[in-house]
C-alpha cells in the first residue's frame, strides 16, 4: 500500500509555499459557537447544527470525526455496526456526562481504614459476594470492548458512553477484589453457572443480543445485588462501596433500557428476536437464583449469621428476587417489550417461595 509520501512538500513549505487547502477549501459548518450550560460545556451543548445530526446509516466507515470534511481516499475501517439504532439511545449524551461527573476512586473514596473485624461467617459471606461480583463485573467491560471497535465512529457519543462503562467496570472489579482482601478474609468460590451466563454475554452473535442480555438483564440483576448490598452492609465501608457501584450500574441499565426502546421504536419487527435472547437469559437467571454461592451469602448478610439466615434467609431471598424481577419487567415495559406473558422463570422465583415470609415472621 502506498501512503503517498510527498517529500517535495518539505522543500515547498521550506520556501513558504504552504498548501492551505485545509484553510481555504474545507467544506464543513463554520462559525459554530457552542454555549456552555451551567455545569460547563456539555456534549449536549455541542450537539448543534450539522454537528448534532447523526445519520441513521453511516455513509462511510472511517474514524473521521462526524461533521468533518473527509478526504476521498480515507481507508475503510471495516466497521460492522453502521446503523444508528444498533447502539443509540436518547439519553446517551447525558449518561456520558453523568458518568464522567460521577466517577470515584476505589482507593481514595472508600473509608478502608474504618473496616472492623466481622463475625467469621459474615466476613465469609461478604468475601463470597465480593468474589462473585469481582468475577461478573469485568464481563461488562469485556463486552463493550469487544464491540467498540466495530461501531461506526459516526456514533461516537455512544462509543464514548461505552468507554465510561469499561472504566466503571474496572473500578467495580477493583473495589470488590479489594474488599475481599482487606478484612482478614480472601476470595471464595467461582461457579460454573455464573461463568456460563458471562459466556452467553461475551459470545453473543450480535450487539443487540449481548446488550439485551447484559445491559438489561444481567446488569439489572447486579444492580439489585448492589442495592441489597448497600442495605445489608455490615459497616459504612461496604455501604459506600455498594452505593457508589449502584449509581454506576444504574447508568448502564438506563442505557440498556433506552437503547432497546430506541431500537424497537425504529424496528418493531425485532421484538421477537429480543424475546428469544431474553428467553435464554432468563433460564440462566433462574439458575443464578438457585446458586448457593450467591443466595446464601446474601441471606447471611441480611440475617447476621448462618443460624439466623436459616429463618430469615428465604424471606430475604424473596425480597431480592421479587425486586429483581419487578424492576426487570418494568424496564422491559419501558423499552416496549412486554415480557409478562412469556417470562421464562418458575413461579417460585416470580411469586416467592411458599412459606418464606411466614418463616421470617416466626
Amino acid at each position, binding site marked *: 500500500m502506498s501512503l503517498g509520501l510527498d517529500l517535495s512538500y518539505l522543500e515547498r513549505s521550506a520556501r513558504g509555499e504552504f498548501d492551505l487547502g485545509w484553510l481555504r477549501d474545507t467544506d464543513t459548518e463554520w462559525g459554530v459557537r457552542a454555549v456552555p450550560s451551567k455545569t460547563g460545556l456539555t456534549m449536549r451543548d455541542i450537539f448543534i447544527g450539522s454537528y448534532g445530526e447523526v445519520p441513521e446509516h453511516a455513509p462511510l466507515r472511517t474514524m473521521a470525526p462526524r461533521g468533518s470534511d473527509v478526504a476521498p481516499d480515507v481507508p475503510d475501517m471495516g466497521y460492522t455496526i453502521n446503523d444508528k439504532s444498533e447502539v443509540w439511545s436518547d439519553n446517551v449524551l447525558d449518561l456520558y456526562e453523568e458518568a464522567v461527573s460521577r466517577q470515584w476512586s476505589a482507593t481514595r473514596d472508600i473509608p478502608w481504614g474504618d473496616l472492623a473485624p466481622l463475625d467469621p461467617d459474615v466476613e465469609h459471606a461478604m468475601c463470597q459476594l465480593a468474589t462473585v461480583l469481582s468475577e461478573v463485573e469485568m464481563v461488562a467491560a469485556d463486552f463493550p470492548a469487544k464491540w467498540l471497535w466495530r461501531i461506526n465512529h459516526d456514533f461516537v457519543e455512544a462509543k464514548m458512553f461505552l468507554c465510561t462503562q469499561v472504566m466503571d467496570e474496572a473500578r467495580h472489579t477493583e473495589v470488590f477484589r479489594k474488599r475481599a482482601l482487606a478484612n482478614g478474609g480472601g476470595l471464595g468460590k467461582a461457579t460454573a453457572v455464573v461463568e456460563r451466563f458471562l459466556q452467553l454475554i461475551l459470545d453473543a452473535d450480535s450487539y443487540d443480543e449481548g446488550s439485551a442480555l447484559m445491559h438489561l438483564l444481567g446488569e439489572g440483576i447486579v444492580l439489585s445485588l448492589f442495592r441489597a448490598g448497600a442495605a445489608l452492609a455490615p459497616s459504612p465501608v461496604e455501604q459506600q462501596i455498594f452505593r457508589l457501584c*449502584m449509581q454506576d450500574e444504574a447508568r448502564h441499565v438506563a442505557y440498556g433500557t433506552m437503547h432497546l426502546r430506541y431500537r424497537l421504536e425504529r424496528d418493531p419487527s425485532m421484538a421477537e428476536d429480543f424475546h428469544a435472547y431474553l428467553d435464554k437469559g432468563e433460564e440462566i437467571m433462574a439458575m443464578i437464583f438457585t446458586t448457593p454461592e450467591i443466595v446464601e451469602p446474601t441471606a447471611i448478610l441480611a440475617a447476621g449469621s448462618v443460624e439466623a439466615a436459616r429463618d430469615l434467609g428465604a424471606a430475604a431471598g424473596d425480597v431480592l428476587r421479587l425486586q429483581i424481577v419487578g424492576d426487570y419487567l418494568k424496564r422491559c415495559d419501558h423499552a416496549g417489550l412486554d415480557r409478562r406473558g412469556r417470562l421464562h422463570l418458575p413461579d417460585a422465583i416470580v411469586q416467592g417461595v411458599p412459606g418464606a415470609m411466614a418463616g421470617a415472621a416466626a
Partner: protein
Amino acid sequence: MPAISAPFPSGPWFEELVARATADTGAIERLGIAEFRFGMEIVLPDGTRPLFGLVLDGYDITAVGPMDEGTFAPELVFSGQLDAWTEMIRWIEAHGPADSAHSLNGLSIAGIPFEARSSDAMGSDKFYRFMGTLQAVFDAAGSESPVPVGTV
C-alpha cells in the same frame, strides 16, 4: 449540629435541610451532576399526604412544596408514614450519616416502611443513579455538610 428548627414536615424544614447540604459547594460538585425530580410523601395520621420535592439540576439542589403531585411531576415518590420519616430523621440527628438500616435505600428496599414508587423504570433507575446525592441531602439533617465521595 442542632436539629433543624422548623417543624417537620414543612417547606422551611426541607429548605433548611437543602441549605445545610449545599453549604459546601465543593462537596456537592464532587458528588457529581444529577437531573432528577424526587418526590417525598409524608402520610399523616389523618390520612392526608403532603408532598414535597427535591429538584436536582446539575449541581443545584432545590427544595419545593408542599405541592400537588400533578404540579410537581416527580419522577419517583418516596413515601412513608410520618412515624417512619421522623424515626429516620431523628436517627440521623442523633448519630450522623445514615447507616445502612436508616438510609433511603435500606428503608425502601423491601417496600416497608417506605415505598419508592415511580410510573416507569427511568424513575426508579434515577433513584439508584443519584442515591449518593439524595442521601447526602438527608445526612445533612445531622451534620453541617454532606459526606460526599472524594474527601476521605
